[in-house]
C-alpha cells in the first residue's frame, strides 16, 4: 500500500513539474499561430520596418513601437543603473547592519508596489512636472516621464541581483587586497567589482528585460501615440519629451477590440516582444552561468 501511494505521488508530482514546460509550449504555439497570418500577409520586413500603424487602413508597421520600447528602456537604464549599482555596493560593502536592515526591506517593497500605482504617481506628479519644461508640443506624457517611472521599477531587480553578485566574491580577494594596504574603496573598485563583473552585467540585463516587459505604467505615462520619437524642437535633447508607444502598450491597448488581420498583427507584436525578451534573458543567463564556473 505504502508503495503504491509512493509511486502514484511520484507520478503526480512529475506531472505538476511538466505543467511549466507545457505552459511554455502552449504560449509559443498560441502566440505564434495567431501571429502567423500577420507575418505572412504583411511580410516580416513591412511589419518590423513599417513605421505606420493604422488598423483602419490595414497598415501594420510596428517600428514605432520597437523604437519606443528600446528608447524608453535605454533611458530608464541610464537613470536607473548608476543608482541601482551604487545601492548594491552600498548594501553589500558599506552599510552598517542597522542601515541595511532598513534599506533592504525598502528595496523589496519598491519591487512589490503595483505597477499601476507607479503609473498613477507618474501621471499625477511627474507628468505635470515634466510639462513645465517650456517646449512647444510638450504634453508631459512621453519618454522622459515614462523612463523615470521605469528607472524606479527596475531598481529593485538590479540592486538585488548585483548585491548578491558582490557578496559572492570570495572573502580572500578582499582580504588579500586590503592586506596590500589599499583603502576599502580601492579594493571595491580594483578587486571586488571586477570579480563580480559578470553578475553585475547580468543584473543590468535582467533589469533591461524587466523594463521591456513593463506594460500598465508605460501606458499610463508614455502617451501612447504611434510615432517614431523625434525631437520636438531644434534642440535634439527634446526627443525625450516626445510621446511614444511600447510594444507592450500596443498589445494591451488594442487586443480587446482587434479582429482579423489587426488581431493577428497584435499577436505578431507579442511574438516580437517575446523574442526580444528571450534574447535579453538568455544573455543574462549565459553570463550568470559563466560566473559559477
Amino acid at each position, binding site marked *: 500500500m505504502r508503495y503504491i501511494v509512493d509511486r502514484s505521488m511520484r507520478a503526480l508530482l512529475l506531472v505538476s*513539474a511538466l505543467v511549466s514546460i507545457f505552459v511554455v509550449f502552449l*504560449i509559443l504555439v498560441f502566440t505564434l499561430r495567431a501571429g502567423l497570418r500577420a507575418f505572412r500577409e504583411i511580410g516580416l520586413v513591412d511589419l518590423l520596418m513599417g513605421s505606420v500603424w493604422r488598423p483602419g487602413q490595414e497598415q501594420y508597421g510596428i517600428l514605432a513601437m520597437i523604437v519606443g520600447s528600446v528608447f524608453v528602456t535605454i533611458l530608464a537604464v541610464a537613470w536607473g543603473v548608476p543608482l541601482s549599482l551604487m545601492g548594491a555596493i552600498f*548594501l553589500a560593502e558599506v552599510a552598517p547592519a542597522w542601515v541595511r536592515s532598513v534599506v533592504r526591506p525598502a528595496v523589496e517593497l519598491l519591487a512589490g508596489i503595483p505597477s499601476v500605482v507607479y503609473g498613477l504617481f507618474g501621471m499625477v506628479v511627474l507628468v505635470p512636472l515634466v510639462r513645465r519644461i517650456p517646449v512647444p508640443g510638450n504634453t508631459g506624457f512621453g519618454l522622459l516621464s515614462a523612463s523615470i517611472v521605469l528607472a524606479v521599477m527596475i531598481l529593485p531587480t538590479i540592486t538585488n541581483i548585483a548585491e548578491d553578485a558582490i557578496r559572492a566574491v570570495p572573502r580572500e580577494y578582499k582580504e588579500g587586497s586590503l592586506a596590500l594596504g589599499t583603502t576599502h574603496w580601492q579594493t571595491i573598485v580594483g578587486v571586488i567589482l571586477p570579480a563580480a563583473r559578470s553578475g553585475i552585467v547580468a543584473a543590468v540585463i535582467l533589469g533591461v528585460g524587466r523594463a521591456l516587459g513593463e506594460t500598465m505604467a508605460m501606458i499610463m505615462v508614455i502617451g501612447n501615440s504611434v510615432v517614431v520619437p523625434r525631437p520636438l524642437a531644434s534642440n535634439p535633447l527634446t526627443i525625450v519629451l516626445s510621446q511614444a508607444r511600447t510594444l507592450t502598450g500596443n498589445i494591451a491597448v488594442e487586443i480587446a477590440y482587434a479582429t482579423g488581420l489587426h488581431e493577428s498583427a497584435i499577436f505578431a507584436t507579442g511574438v516580437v516582444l517575446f523574442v526580444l525578451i528571450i534574447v535579453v534573458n538568455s544573455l543574462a543567463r549565459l553570463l550568470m552561468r559563466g560566473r559559477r564556473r
Partner: protein
Amino acid sequence: MQDAGWRIEHRDRTFVLTTSNLAWRHFAQRVAFALLWLAGIMAVAVLVVVVAYVVLQGVKVINPEFLLTPPRGGLSGEGGISTTVVTTLYLVLLTISIAAPLGVGAAIYLVEYAGQMQGQGRLAYLVGVVRFGVELLAGVPSIIFGLFGYALFVTAMHLGFSLLSAALAGACLLLPVVIRASEEALRAVPRSFREGSLALGTTQWQTVWGVVVPAALPGIITSVVLSVGRVISETAVFYVTLGGSYNLPRSILSGGRSMALHLYYLAMDTRAFEKAMGTGAILIVVIVLINLIINFLSHRLAARLGGA
C-alpha cells in the same frame, strides 16, 4: 623632502607613497562612500515619497462609504470600491488554488525526486527541460501571459472574459514564482532530516510528506503569500482577460474588475485621480502587510531549521 615615504617604480613611472598620497586615498574613499550613502538614502527616499504621497492623497477619500459601496461608473468615477475588493479576493483565491498545488508539487519533484535521476537518461533530460521552462517563464513579461490567456482561455476555450480565464492566465504567471520560492525552502531542509526518516523504513513519499514538507512549511507558505501579492498587484494579465465590468461577478464565468484594474480605469478613463489614489493607498497598505508577513515567515523558517 623628496624621499619621505615609499618609492615604487613601475615601468617608466614612479609612484611615491607618501602621507599625502594616503590622505588623498582616504579623501577619495570619503567622497565615494558619501555618494554610496546617498544612493542608499535615495532608494529609501523614492519609496517614502511614492508611498507617502499616494497614502496621504488616498486617505482623503477613504471612508466606510468608499469601502462599502460599489462603483457606479460615471465620468468622475462615482461610488466606492466594494465590488472590486470582493473580485480581487475571488481572483486571489481562484488563482492561488490553481497555481499553488501545481507549483509546490513541481518544486517537490525538482528537489526531492529529480536529484536521483543520474543514470536515468530520459528523465534527467526531462528535468533539465523543466528547469529551463521555469527559468523562461520567470522572464516572460506579464502582458504575454495576458495575450496567451486571451488566445487560449478567452477565445479558443470560449471561457470569455471571466474570473476563470483570468485565474488560469494568472496561474501561469505565478508558476515560476511559487516553484522558485518553494524550491528554495525545500533545499534549506538539512539532508539529515531525510536520511533519518528514510532510515526508519519510510517510503520516499512518507519522508517528503511527513518530514521535509513540514520542515519547509514556513517557506512554502511564504511562496504562497508572495503569489497573493503578485495577484493583487498584477494588472496587465487581467486587463486583457478579466473584462473590466465593475459589477460583482456572479460565477467564475462572469467578468470583473480587480482593485488594481479599477485604479487603472479610474485614472485613465475617468481621470478620477482622487479615487484612484484611495484605491492605490489601500493596495499599498495590503502590499506592506504582505511584505511584513513574508519577513516574519522567513525568520520563522531560519529559526526552525537553525534550532533543530
